[in-house]
């Protein structure tokens, strides 16, 4: 298991670094946008499968990390006050 070739093929295809380096924002077809209606309830934060929407504790508004948000729109669907809108990703 010591030759150079095997070195790159970690057993079980595990990658010994964070997947943060792999930005996935370009996968989006729709872009969710948080509007002023947001009441900071955190429902979206709990349901986002990618952990990319978070309520900013200072502004009490949800913010989206577009480097990783894949545009699944789950946040839009669960928001109790319909504070998230979508637009087609350009």
């Amino acid at each position, binding site marked *: 298991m010591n030759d150079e*070739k*095997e070195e790159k*093929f970690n*057993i*079980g*295809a*595990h*990658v*010994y*670094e*964070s*997947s*943060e380096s792999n930005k996935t924002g370009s996968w989006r077809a729709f872009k969710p946008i948080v509007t002023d209606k947001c009441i900071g309830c955190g429902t979206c934060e709990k349901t986002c499968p990618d952990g990319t929407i978070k309520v900013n504790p200072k502004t009490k508004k949800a913010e989206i990390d577009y480097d990783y948000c894949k545009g699944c729109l789950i946040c839009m669907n669960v928001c109790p006050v319909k504070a998230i809108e979508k637009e087609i990703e350009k």
Partner: protein
Amino acid sequence: MVKKVVEASQAIAEALKLCKPAVIAAYPITPQTHIVEHLSQMVADGDLKSEYIRVESEHSAMSACFGAACAGVRTFTATASQGLELMHEILHIVSGSRLPIVMAVANRAVSGPINIWNDWSDAMAARDCGWIQLYCETAQEALDTVIQAYKISENHEILLPTMVCIDGFYLSHTYEPVDVPDSLNGFLPDYDPVVSIDMKNPITQGSFGTPPHFQEFREQQYHAMNRAKRVIKQTNKEFAEKFGRSYGNGLIETYNIDKAKHIIISLGSICGTIKYLLEKDNIKDVGLVRIKSFRPFPEEELREILNEYESVGVLEKAVTLGIGGPVWSELRGLTSKPIADFIGGLGGRDITLDNIREVFDKIRSSDTGVHWLGSKLKGDYDD
């Protein structure tokens, strides 16, 4: 060591009490067996300090084990029949991720028609999922094999999951005297995971394997499975030193072969019946080879043995439609001697002593066909 009269299901639970998996995930409804019932009782009584996750399906049971194994702990689940089918997708992901999960499979038929009785259709349909498959003959062997399975799977040279296969009902629900060790006496080291969750050093598990990389990961699994032959034999030996019991060389077991001219090959509990008949009828010209390890397949051992005898027959409780029995079709390439196939016991049909006598006669006649044991059909199949 205490001798207990238990069914193989409980023998397996007793083994887990010693192996102490941190997480057990199981779906409790048919085709589940008493294995997880005994385990949940042990956890409820405080005799086993595992996290017991009752999930909503077998797909989830294996997924929960996958997650727990990714987090870096020893895990266990059990299933059979349709339950194993429902897990199928995750079986590949577990072995591809090289997670040493151990699972007991109480071998049962796969519907339809609906049937929950014994045969090997479930596990043999999963033979290409990258799991080690060890088939047991007795409740004692089931207990011993679970303990060995963790040692084999968790070996860093192997890192493949293991199915410990016991015949549904014939073993899972049948009571026999079993030696239950008080302790593992240092036989099984603490689990030393290769991957785990460390918040300070995040890693990526379950990653992509794109076309330039994917094939090499399979190739690594292939070589690990080949290495498992060596490790299974070694583990069988070490187990014998500690506990005074061994099962052939760990991969195969032979019986009555010294003076024999013909060989019958089979797996699991039916081998007990075959041994009984060989003694009862004082048969000297037929010997038994029991395959314990179906994956990895003990090719070298079998090739060596089969070519020493005049003719061979395989008795198996599974069929690969379009060719014959799965064991027979793999053995045919290993010998130039006549080799016949006997498919029987499907869906829990009894294989009687007379059935086996019939099999012996056919083997003695150097038959090479595929036979359906005790078939009630009489017709011209035009095939």
